[in-house]
């Protein structure tokens, strides 16, 4: 989802730690090292990587405006090839019929069917293009805060994994408990009470 869309989702994170100086070069180099790869024409189902905000289909951090205002702005891209089950079934049926005709056997065993299915899927993955999904990332480095323009579980999990692999910094998702712990400046007594909380009921 794009930051400049008329309606957007937003998940928030706290970034723990700081990068090596000079920060801008470190960010650009790290993003480039984990840039999204092209999986079209390969028997690969999914790719996850970074791309540039302005040119998400031609990732290039060198030529892109990575810094906008006080923020690093780039994007998480997840490319996926989805083969409809019906298509797999159709090609498997044709392949199985060919195999039976070739061998003269009356039935195909479970292992034979599995082998044919794997071959069919690999063949289809080679031919179909990947669908790119782009989720903008806004990182306020000085404030240690990061936004992802997605609330999809897959995108959030991919961000957390890839961000750590890229920058060796931890992302802490801001949900009620972490927001209370990290932002509320609770006293020691309040913090103890927070840990001991149990649900409230308005019943009765």
């Amino acid at each position: 989802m794009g930051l400049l869309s008329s309606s957007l989702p937003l998940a928030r994170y706290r970034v723990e730690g700081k990068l090596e100086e000079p920060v801008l070069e470190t960010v650009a180099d790290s993003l480039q090292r984990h840039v999204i790869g092209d999986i079209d024409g390969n028997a690969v189902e999914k790719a996850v990587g970074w791309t540039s905000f302005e040119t998400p289909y031609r990732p290039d951090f060198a030529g892109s405006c990575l810094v906008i205002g006080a923020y690093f702005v780039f994007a998480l891209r997840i490319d996926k090839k989805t083969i409809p089950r019906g298509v797999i079934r159709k090609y498997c049926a044709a392949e199985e019929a060919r195999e039976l005709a070739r061998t003269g056997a009356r039935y195909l065993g479970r292992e034979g069917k599995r082998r044919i299915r794997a071959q069919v899927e690999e063949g289809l993955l080679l031919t179909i293009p990947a669908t790119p999904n782009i989720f903008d990332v806004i990182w306020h480095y000085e404030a240690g805060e990061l936004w992802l323009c997605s609330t999809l579980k897959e995108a959030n999990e991919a961000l957390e994994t890839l961000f750590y692999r890229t920058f060796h910094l931890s992302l802490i998702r801001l949900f009620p408990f972490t927001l209370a712990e990290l932002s509320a400046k609770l006293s020691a007594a309040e913090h103890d009470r927070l840990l001991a909380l149990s649900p409230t009921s308005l019943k009765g």
Partner: protein
Amino acid sequence: MLDVAVAFSRYRFLGPEFLTWLWYAIETAPDAIKAAALGRGILTVGDRIVLESSADQPVERVTITGENADLGEGMLALRKGALVAELRLHYTAGDQEWRFSVKGDTLALMGLKTPPSAPVETRDEVEGAVVEKVGLCEEVVRLLDSLFLRFIKLRVSERWREKTIPGMKTWVKAARL
């Protein structure tokens, strides 16, 4: 700090409690909400409320939608022990308006619509548009933070048990079904 996954699961109830309190506070103490918005704007409940009763297995879910929706069903769900799982809000400050939903368990924002900004027609305009959009989103993020921090301070205090819960129960009971 606790392991994040453990903390998410163990304290999942805090988000729905926050949204339920927010609904209550908007209805009964709008001035306090305005103060949390730094006196800048007015926060109102929008056209969608989702309530969930997590004590039930399977989870009972009530969704109220529409500009002039009857909130009676929501109040009935609260009486039965449900809490707000998702709340659509409108925030107006001057002639600007934001519309967004907040998910209780994660506090993630969904369908965030900020006041309109100038369309981007050339590449040179992208930078300005991003800065403006981030600033507009930040208004909502800071507002929610301010409200949540007010809630959590209250939640860990004695006032929650002594005053807020009885107040919320009275509000729920007094609602016309």
